[in-house]
């Protein structure tokens, strides 16, 4: 039942920009990100992105559990694949950014990377076709988790006074410069960091989804709805839809990587003091 409602919801989302009554071409806008609730549990209305977020969590947890519950000395195919992803995050993100202390944070970074990637990947999977991370709430919660963690780690490793002193007054700079530097550093670390961390992921996925939807609607409108020379534009739109889907798959991995990389950079700036 859930599968059919999901399919219907995605069909509905795909057709929403085409208004049959008014006719003419309508480019898709922000309305493709709003879904009617599928069902409600005790007043909480459950929408398609929420179901997909649970689904994504289940995929990541199951994948890692099945692959690594009984680890073997000589890994099977699935275990080797998962270990490839794990070692990538450990070597290319945790160890190269945080250094030797990074091993402690590998579980967090691996979870972040694969969770964000799966949620992004839903954008190109047929019938799902919606990047969950293009709803600002999901990246915002992940960014807040990292934000609270790096402030906690900074206070733990450098002391409550030392953390803010090292952040706002880095040594080796002429005294008068601190008048400008200290407030700027404070704003950029405390206010701008979590904002850009969440918005970067959100905006990339949002823009990518609008772009694919735009080319898909163009192809549909000029091939199916109208006749004549417009079919040239329609075919171009169709080719661009496929090309952009491929490009989006690259962007999805890159954004998941960048999100995790920045989390590691923030953790590194808290656990180690610059000298």
């Amino acid at each position, binding site marked *: 039942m859930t599968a059919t409602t999901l399919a219907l919801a995605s069909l509905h989302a795909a057709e929403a920009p085409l208004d049959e009554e008014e006719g003419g071409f309508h480019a898709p806008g*922000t309305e493709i990100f709003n879904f009617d609730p599928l069902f409600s549990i005790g007043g909480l209305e459950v929408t398609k992105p929420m179901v997909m977020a649970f689904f994504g969590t289940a995929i990541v947890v199951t994948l890692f559990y099945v692959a690594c519950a009984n680890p073997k000395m000589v890994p099977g195919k699935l275990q080797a694949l998962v270990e490839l992803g794990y070692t990538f995050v450990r070597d290319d993100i945790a160890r*190269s*950014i945080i250094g030797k202390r990074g091993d402690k944070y590998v579980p967090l970074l691996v979870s972040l990377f694969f969770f964000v990637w799966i949620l992004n990947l839903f954008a190109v999977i047929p019938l799902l076709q919606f990047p969950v991370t293009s709803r600002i709430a999901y990246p915002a919660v992940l960014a807040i988790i990292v934000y609270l963690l790096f402030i906690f780690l900074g206070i733990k490793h450098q002391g409550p006074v030392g953390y803010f002193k090292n952040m706002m007054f880095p040594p080796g700079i002429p005294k008068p410069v601190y008048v400008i530097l200290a407030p700027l550093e404070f704003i950029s670390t405390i206010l701008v960091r979590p904002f*850009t961390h969440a*918005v*970067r992921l*959100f*905006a*990339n996925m949002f*823009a990518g989804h609008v772009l694919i939807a735009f080319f898909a609607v163009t192809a549909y409108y000029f091939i199916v709805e109208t006749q004549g020379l417009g079919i040239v534009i329609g075919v171009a739109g169709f080719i661009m839809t496929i090309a952009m889907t491929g490009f989006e798959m690259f962007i999805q991995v890159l954004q998941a*990587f*960048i999100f995790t*990389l*920045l989390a590691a*950079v923030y953790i590194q700036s808290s656990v180690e003091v610059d000298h």
Partner: protein
Amino acid sequence: MNVAELFGSVGAIGYGLAAIGPGIGVGLIFGLGVQAIARQPEAYNLLRQNMILGFVLTEALALIGFVAPFVYPTS
């Protein structure tokens, strides 16, 4: 006093303006990054890491321009 009147999507113009600086910045980062890799291919891993980091921090400015119309809707 109205100096000039503007119709249509101001947000789109704002994003266009916001994208100029980061566009130049991202171009510089990858241009110099590729040059550095060409000069020192063995330092590829280190350079790639810093390239992506610089790209990400520059790109943030364009993305703030992208979300500003949603934060300050016109109507």
